[in-house]
């Protein structure tokens, strides 16, 4: 990734506190256009919270967040509206609207923000559903009729509805079988290439860290413990980082990756 690429998201000295509990204590990071940035860290280390701050659902206690060139910590809700249209968000557990079919769910952003005809919206929604690897007939189902993995895919399809410049994914591959998880990684890479997406994702999946992440940020102890490519981080000797990337699972994923690269 070019060092001088445009910066699309920037956090500066972000502090987050829930009542007494300090979650982030001075986090600064930058997301560059066209990259896949993965945020990793133990459970409860504040990854989802950081994502919520980037997508303007939560105000940090202190510090600033800049999205697509706008300081969103100072902006009002109305000023944020046009900005929000340019991002897609996929929540950790889907957050599909229960009162609408999967097809309708996927078409919601199109229906709200464009004047396209209903037929065309349904077709585009169907295209997005197929793109995420769902069967053609799934569109007619209701969210509570889906399996966990299907729900993830449908949520991703909805996040992609407007072809956003910036895509935020909270644990996209958790709850997927290994083959589907690989498929999702492929899809993310393909979307990045074709649609020029910038992707910020939270993940625990070592395989997808190796395969899709351009850069990885490791959260821990309320701060950023390390940032860099997977190769850099996995060679790091800093205790906190080494531990995270040298567990048995991490080693298997790393070995597979290196074998794949040498073949």
């Amino acid at each position, binding site marked *: 990734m070019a060092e001088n690429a445009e910066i699309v998201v920037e956090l500066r000295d972000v502090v987050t506190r829930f009542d007494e509990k300090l979650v982030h204590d001075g986090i600064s990071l930058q997301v560059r256009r066209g990259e896949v940035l993965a945020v990793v860290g133990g459970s409860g280390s504040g990854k989802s919270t950081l994502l919520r701050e980037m997508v303007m659902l939560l105000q940090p206690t202190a510090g600033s967040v800049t999205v697509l060139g706008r300081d969103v910590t100072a902006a009002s809700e109305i000023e944020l509206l046009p900005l929000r249209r340019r991002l897609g968000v996929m929540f950790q557990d889907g957050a599909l609207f229960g009162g609408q079919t999967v097809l309708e769910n996927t078409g919601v952003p199109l229906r709200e923000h*464009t004047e396209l005809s209903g037929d065309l919206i349904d*077709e585009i929604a169907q295209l997005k559903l197929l793109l995420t690897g769902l069967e053609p007939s799934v569109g007619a189902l209701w969210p509570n009729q889906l399996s966990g993995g299907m729900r993830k895919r449908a949520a991703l399809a909805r996040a992609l509805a*407007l072809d956003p410049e910036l895509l935020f994914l909270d644990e996209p591959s958790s709850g997927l079988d290994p083959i589907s998880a690989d498929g999702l990684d492929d899809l993310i890479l393909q979307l990045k290439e074709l649609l020029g997406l910038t992707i910020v994702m939270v993940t625990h999946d070592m395989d997808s860290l190796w395969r899709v992440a351009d850069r990885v940020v490791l959260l821990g102890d309320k701060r950023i413990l390390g940032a860099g490519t997977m190769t850099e981080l996995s060679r790091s000797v800093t205790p906190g980082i080494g531990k995270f990337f040298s567990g048995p699972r991490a080693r298997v994923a790393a070995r597979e990756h290196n074998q794949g690269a040498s073949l």
Partner: protein
Amino acid sequence: MARPAKAHADGGLVFCDGDWSALHVATAERQLKSIRLAPGEIKIDVSGVERIDSSGAWLLSRTARQWRSKARTVDFVGTSEHIRQLFRLIAEQGIEGEPPRPATHGFLENLGRDSLNAATEQLAFLSFIGNITFSSLRILLTPARLRWSQVVTDAEESGFDALPIVGLLAFLIGVVIAYQGGVVLIQYGAGIFIADLVGLAMLRELAPLITAIIVAGRTGSAYTAQIGTMMVTEEVDALRTMGITPIDLLVLPKLFALVVMLPLLTVFADLMGLLGGMAMASSMLDMSFQNFVDRLGQSVRLQDFLVGVGKAPVFAAIIASVGCYQGFRVTGSAESVGKQTTLSVVQSIFLVIVVDAVFSIVFSALDI
């Protein structure tokens, strides 16, 4: 910013230009639809397209597909590598036919389904009543198994917390009855009977009814929403898998709490209603509190009071069971929580009034 997407035809040539991303292709969609095709071969020139995303690409490729289905040859010219990639991505999905929609049914089928649903609904409610009756009896045999702390919490929420609103409304109703009745009674010089009017109306009918209606709106709806939300988040299923019957944990404490609290609230409403009547009588008719209470003692019998308060546990059972039943009927979505909550309030108020009418008939037949 690029110009919005445009499309216009010139003979067999269709020119497309501007920004073909989802937010800006609405005009182009209409323009493409209104194009009258000249006979012969068609070429779509996309060299003027400045930006395009998958929605725009889909619009182009579905248009080409529609035209091809009218036995035309359609070709794209001036495609950039980016557009070709998007077309390939779309082609790989192999979209065919209409997007799927949930099956819809004809009028007759709907009528049949609705009738069947209505019938099974009645049966399900009856079976729910049976279920809680059975569970209540069982728990009365082993009272230690009832969740008493939950009963106390529920009693506080449904009873104690409702005191201000019940008291205020009962007081106001007492005032209104005394005023409306007083206006007429004074004309006949029968002002003293205002105590009879307020006393009988409040104690026998209005206090129990008003209290039940307030509690149905306040507590019955809360029961439905709480259980309904737990249904959505699979908490009820989680309880079942732990071997805890949702009825024992969720319904019985609420039921017992309300059966105890509603009569107490009714007594409070009786008092506040009489107080309202007394206040009105003293200001409009110069009738002292002492006189009012004396008159009340002559006209109102103990059984009038008991008739009113005695109805309250029945109302409470109706409100709690309808509220909980509708909660368990929630399926899957937030919308359904809202729908069942509305139904719960409407049905419990309806049933309370119907049962009150039945009580009136029975009491008059029994001459109570």
